[in-house]
């Protein structure tokens, strides 16, 4: 295992006087998926946007090491008013990638080759999220950020997305994902980062975290208690 691909150093983010994240110091190693979990309002989505570069930190910095391309999938898929194929082609064009063969390959990967020429925004919620995943996967990112990508999906669509992510991770793509679904984290995560009130409470291998959480907050969170 090599060093971290991402490192947060004294990372903080504030809106006005309100600190959404503060004093975060951690590394994200390559390999199995890293899951950021925590109660609502703990700062999971903000952290992901900082790591991806969509937000500029108020304090500290994010250091990236050896990351070429990165992509992000949002909770609510934002697809252009175009066909499925054109959505992926647009992303490839923005990235300066001219390899059109990636489009059918990505659609095959998410199981939607039959919808290639359909208007993307008229698909079901689950299909739209898989198109958003195909768009991200077509970029062949070294690291893929996902912000609760299955939060609005039914169990079948959730399983489909999880299977896609498991295959991507098995191919060596680093996945950093937020979720509020502990079962999902158990199924997919290699590492857990628990956030609470904008602070990193615990970072541990998934197995260790779920079997013997070190912090009182983690123990309470796993019990389903409301964190104070």
């Amino acid at each position, binding site marked *: 295992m090599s060093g971290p691909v991402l490192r947060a150093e004294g990372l903080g983010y504030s809106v006005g006087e309100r600190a959404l994240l503060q004093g975060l110091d951690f590394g994200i190693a390559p390999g199995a998926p890293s899951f950021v979990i925590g109660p609502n309002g703990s700062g999971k989505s903000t952290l992901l946007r900082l790591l*991806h570069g*969509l937000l500029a930190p108020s304090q500290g910095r994010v250091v990236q090491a050896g990351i070429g391309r990165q*992509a*992000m999938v*949002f909770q609510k898929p*934002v697809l*252009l*008013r*175009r066909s499925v194929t054109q959505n992926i082609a*647009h*992303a490839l064009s*923005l*990235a300066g990638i001219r390899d059109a063969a990636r489009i059918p390959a990505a659609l095959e990967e998410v199981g939607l080759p039959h919808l290639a020429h359909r*208007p993307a*925004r*008229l698909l079901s919620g689950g299909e739209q999220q898989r198109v958003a995943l195909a768009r991200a996967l077509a970029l062949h990112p070294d690291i893929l950020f996902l912000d609760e990508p299955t939060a609005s999906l039914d169990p079948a669509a959730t399983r489909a997305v999880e299977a896609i992510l498991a295959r991507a991770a098995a191919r060596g793509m680093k996945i950093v994902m937020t979720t509020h679904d502990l079962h999902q984290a158990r199924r997919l995560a290699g590492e857990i980062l628990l956030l609470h009130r904008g602070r990193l409470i615990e970072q541990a291998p998934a197995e260790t975290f779920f079997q013997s959480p070190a912090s009182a907050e983690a123990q309470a969170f796993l019990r389903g208690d409301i964190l104070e």
Partner: protein
Amino acid sequence: MQDLGAAFQQALGLVAAGDAGLWAIIALSLRVSLTATLIAACIGLPLGALLAVARFPGRQGLLVVLNALMGLPPVVAGLIIYILLSRSGPFGALGLLFTPAAMVIAQAVLITPILAALTRQVLEAMWEEYAEQLRSLGSGPGRAVRTLLWDGRFALLTVLLAGFGRASAEVGAVMVVGGNIEGFTRVMTTAIALETSKGDLPLALGLGIVLMAIVLGVNAAAQLLREASARWSG
């Protein structure tokens, strides 16, 4: 009422017979308004898209000016353009006053703020939805403007049609800068005003019928485009 009925019948007769004078006026009207709409679109659409995407000092002030210009009285616009194009004006040497080109300029000046403001409204809502995703994909402002203009094309076509409708219905400014010269700068609206003042109701009504048909056609096209947009983009 009998006079009005007779005038209406004569008007329909003129339209149906393809009266050369009437159709020359209609052709010039369409040429002037379509050209003005094209010019205004080339300026107003990118400007509106840029205002939807970009945040810069003075943007709010620019928006206030743009919205105020939407209500610019046509005769005032015509007067300013008249002064600019008159022989002693800064552009007098171009010899554009009392030509169709001057009428195109006047209509373009009037509808460019309308197209820009409506474009901004349409695309700003789209930008709120797209912004984070496009930034994540590495899109800069210039590329984002192009993406928004393309994805908003159906809505923007209705904006263009609204601009064309406004241009073709314009009378004050084109009267001032065009001069309403028969066979040269006489368009539907100025002809209607003139023929009505002369008491030639059949020709005025005939032109009015065609103008109304164009306005109705434009609105029907806008409606069809809205429906097509809903079917395609959801």
